């Protein structure tokens, strides 16, 4: 319809340049229009006196405006409006037809594979029409780009799809050639997580339009996919690991899906979830025990539904380096308390934590427990006063201790312990703790996750229940049972606290995990501060041990989780990381190492090496380069040639002194990427077309594609001028104006 009225396609108007072919200046056109309009106005004004009453006032204004519009349109046509277009010169340009040849193109839909659909779309006349106008080159695309003689060269065997890298390669290979346009047939299942802006830079600078043809269903009829799993890369032995599972699904609303975490063949945790919405990501949490120390591979899977189209996207692998280290926690208590005894008992059997305690029994005696070496001088002088002493712990717990017990230097040290060293700090309730101990006005109060009331009388020896907040229900810190429902039920059955302490509102960014029932005061509140983390447990929990059966482990589990949370993220002096531990159909490994000196300030003068050992004795040594912007950061890249598991050890040296070392694992997996995100990614294809000046096409409607391909400014082009005065729409418009005037005159009886 558009082309019937306007003669040329819309894209021609979008890409073309508007001009007037008449030699007369444009100001003359404007002046002529104004003069004619004024003349007509004068004419109508003169006629007001002797005119019949029907065309007086607003009616005469309407008739004047219609006549003025007609005169203006005619004057515009006299100036000869036209469109100048740049188009490809026939037979002198190359058009690259790029066809996705990855494994996802083998997916069969409606009885045909996607490759067959692409082939049919091209062989239905489109390819011939392109060949008639241009030199056409056919490429197959997966993780690399290959030129093929014809469409028979498609194998559907590419292990991944790298659209950006392939287009970059095409731009490079066609650097000296008159590439006029690219026609890309793909399902858009890009495996690198999206298109990099830089990948299109060269084609865009050459103004090569990319026309994308979407292949494949935009949504499967029934599919559940594990889109992503967020899990920590390291954990303490026997600790609880919390994973966030992102499920995406189509056509499965209301269906029940069982999520399972397995270590080898052994199921560690599982839960049934109901699919809440269609074509959207649903987040679920699953916690499980990390088990013994070592490099562990966990498979997180969703049980396939009956009739599910693609079951290969129902599981993913995650690696966790389970550490056998025994972090040290210093617990300082100001007076003998039952809470002290029962916290010590709760973690006594925990092999993954060493709890060292300093208890002020009298004015003249500190009772020290948990120091492993007999005859050690540790803590003999009281709370640590030096960086070396305090930073040897990974977390600090402060019980019923007044602020003034710590010197100003110790308070500053404690702040640096959390902020710079990245340690964990847990504050407990007590008659000399928090507000009762003068903490609200200290510099340390800003680290705490809740405001402290600046008054006395906040500590109460009343037996009150606690209740989980919605954040606490899902938090691994408050997990007493793997099953969420059972966990919530267990918390409701807990015996009342023996005492509790009032807190102010939580700080922005803090999470209140549990509250004192009926008081709206936080019981467990946590937050990150600097490189570390802080928490307050505002109540005495020991009745959970004394009031429950001997075999009940609630109290033990709660405190072990609290202390592990406090220490598990506390970094060493050397910390290595990689953005992706599982390289799915990819071999490029990015390495990053953070190095600190003895006082945990960034060490910019280190020499950092990563030694990698992989399958079949593969591996190597990578020397990392210091980041010029961020002191203490070192980065590098390495290529994992073979699929399989790798162990890497980062070693940092400062001169002759070894600053530290850190071990991490990663795995290269092949033949996996194409199982995920298999529906057509129309959004990506549309974006690709629009940013390059091309257009998105459906595979079953390509009749106008060859004509559109011609409109390109790349390659060898010609400029054409198209007259616009003879467009059908122009004559229609003139007839419409004059016809409207005639109809109005007839209606008002003045014809």
């Amino acid at each position, binding site marked *: 319809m558009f082309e019937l009225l306007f003669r040329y396609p819309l894209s021609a108007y979008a890409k073309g340049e508007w001009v007037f072919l008449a030699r007369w200046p444009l100001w003359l056109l404007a002046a002529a229009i104004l003069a004619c309009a004024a003349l007509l106005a004068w004419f109508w004004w003169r006629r007001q006196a002797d005119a019949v009453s029907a065309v007086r006032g607003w009616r005469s204004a309407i008739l004047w405006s219609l006549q003025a519009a007609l005169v203006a349109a005619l004057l515009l046509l006299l100036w000869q409006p036209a469109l100048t277009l740049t188009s490809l010169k026939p037979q002198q340009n190359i058009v690259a037809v790029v066809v996705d040849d990855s494994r996802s193109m083998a997916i069969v839909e409606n009885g045909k594979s996607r490759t067959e659909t692409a082939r049919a779309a091209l062989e239905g006349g489109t390819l011939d029409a392109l060949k008639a106008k241009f030199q056409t080159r056919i490429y197959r695309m997966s993780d690399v780009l290959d030129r093929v003689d014809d469409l028979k060269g498609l194998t559907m065997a590419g292990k991944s799809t790298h659209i950006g890298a392939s287009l970059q390669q095409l731009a490079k290979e066609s650097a000296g050639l008159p590439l006029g346009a690219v026609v890309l047939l793909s399902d858009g299942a890009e495996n690198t997580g999206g298109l990099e802006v830089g990948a299109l830079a060269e084609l865009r600078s050459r103004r090569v339009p990319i026309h994308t043809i979407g292949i494949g269903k935009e949504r499967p009829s029934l599919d559940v996919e594990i889109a992503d799993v967020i899990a920590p890369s390291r954990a303490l032995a026997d600790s609880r690991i919390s994973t966030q599972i992102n499920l995406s699904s189509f056509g499965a609303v209301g269906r029940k899906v069982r999520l399972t975490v397995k270590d080898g063949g052994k199921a560690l945790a599982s839960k049934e979830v109901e699919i809440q919405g269609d074509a959207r990501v649903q987040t679920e949490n699953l916690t499980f025990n990390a088990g013994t120390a070592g490099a562990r591979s966990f498979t997180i899977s969703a049980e396939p539904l009956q009739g599910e189209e693609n079951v290969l996207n129902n599981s993913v692998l995650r690696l966790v380096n389970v550490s056998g280290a025994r972090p040290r926690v210093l617990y300082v208590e100001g*007076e003998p*308390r039952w809470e002290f005894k029962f916290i010590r008992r709760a973690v006594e059997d925990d092999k993954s934590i060493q709890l060292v305690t300093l208890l*002020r029994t009298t004015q003249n005696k500190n*009772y020290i427990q948990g120091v492993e070496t007999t005859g050690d001088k540790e803590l003999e002088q009281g709370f640590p006063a030096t960086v070396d002493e305090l930073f040897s712990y990974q977390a600090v717990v402060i019980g019923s201790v007044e602020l003034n017990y710590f010197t100003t230097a110790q308070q500053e040290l404690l702040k640096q312990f959390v902020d710079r060293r990245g340690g964990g700090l847990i504050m407990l309730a007590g*008659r000399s703790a928090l507000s009762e101990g003068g903490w609200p006005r200290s510099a340390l109060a800003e680290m705490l996750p809740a405001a402290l009331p600046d008054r006395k009388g906040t500590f109460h020896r009343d037996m009150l229940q606690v209740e989980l907040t919605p954040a606490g229900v899902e938090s691994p810190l408050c997990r007493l049972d793997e099953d969420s429902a059972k966990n919530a039920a267990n918390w409701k059955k807990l015996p009342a606290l023996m005492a509790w302490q009032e807190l102010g509102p939580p700080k922005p960014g803090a999470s209140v995990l549990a509250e004192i029932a009926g008081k709206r005061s936080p019981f467990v509140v946590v937050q990150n501060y600097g490189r570390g983390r802080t928490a307050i447990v505002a109540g005495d929990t*020991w*009745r959970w*041990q004394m009031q*429950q059966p*001997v075999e009940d482990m609630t109290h033990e589990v709660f405190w072990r989780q609290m202390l592990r949370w406090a220490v598990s993220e506390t970094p060493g002096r050397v910390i290595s990381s990689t953005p992706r531990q599982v390289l799915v159909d990819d071999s490029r490994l990015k390495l990053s190492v953070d190095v600190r000196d003895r006082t945990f300030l960034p060490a910019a003068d280190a020499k950092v090496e990563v030694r990698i050992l992989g399958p079949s004795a593969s591996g190597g040594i990578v020397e990392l380069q210091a980041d010029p912007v961020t002191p203490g950061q070192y980065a590098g890249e390495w290529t994992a040639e073979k699929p399989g598991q790798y162990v890497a050890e980062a070693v940092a040296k400062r001169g002759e002194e070894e600053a530290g070392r850190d071990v991490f694992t990663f795995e290269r997996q092949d033949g996996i990427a194409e199982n995920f995100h298999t529906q057509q990614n129309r959004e990506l294809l549309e974006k690709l077309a629009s940013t390059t000046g091309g257009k998105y096409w459906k595979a079953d409607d390509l009749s106008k594609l060859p004509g559109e391909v011609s409109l390109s400014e790349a390659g060898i082009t010609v400029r054409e001028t198209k007259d616009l005065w003879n467009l059908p729409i122009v004559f229609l418009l003139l007839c419409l104006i004059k016809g409207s005037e005639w109809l109005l005159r007839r209606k008002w009886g003045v014809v």
Partner: protein
Amino acid sequence: MKLRTLATAAALGLTIWSGLYAFQRGRGLRSFLDEEDNPAPFPADGNDKTEFVFSRLRYSSMRNGYFGRAGGSWATDYPKADRQFVQGVRRLTRLNVRSVEQVVDLETDDIYNYPWIYATEVGRWGLNDAQVKKLRDYLLRGGFMMFDDFHGTFEWDVFMASMSKVFPDRPVVELENKEQVFHALYDLDERFQVPGIQFLFTGRVAENDGYVGRWRGIHDDKGRLMVAITHNMDLGDAWEWADHPQYPERYASLAYRVGINFIVYSMTH
């Protein structure tokens, strides 16, 4: 008629007065006025809520019947010994202690709110099966008990008749100097037999055939002491009569130190 009205009014008045009196003595606390062995003033802060409460076990006594009145052996030295001892604990440690003791029994779950319990004259006690089970649970959950003031072979056997039912498979052992309980606060390597007040009248340290003071105990699976026994000794009397001019200071002092060590140990292990 008038006489009956008067009598009713008098009875009512007496009841209200008794109630008020008892209330003044210990708001919210169970009162055992008629079982007090050695009455002591009720301190003004006796109702304060504190971290530690000296708890005394009220048990069924074999000689005086179940919860025998006026002199049930559980109440020996009660409450003066308790109140005098906690004054020392308050003065010598940083512990937040109530000035008035708490009487607990094995009939309700309230016992689990008091993880430290003192029991005296257990050479006369007798526990039924339900009480045995409760005491076992109490100790395994983390409770601590001190048994004191029983002497000689016969009373030991009576004590063990019930205690062996509580822990049939756990031996009672002699506590050595290296036990942490003797170092939790004071280093108590030099210990000696502590006699009761009868020492002043008889000049004898021992009672019955208990000639040697025994420091004994029962440990849990992790080697933590959960039962401390001072056999052939009477630390309760030493606390009670520490203010008596003739009672030797060395006995009172050791009794205080041992008692404090037991408390500090129970709150740290």
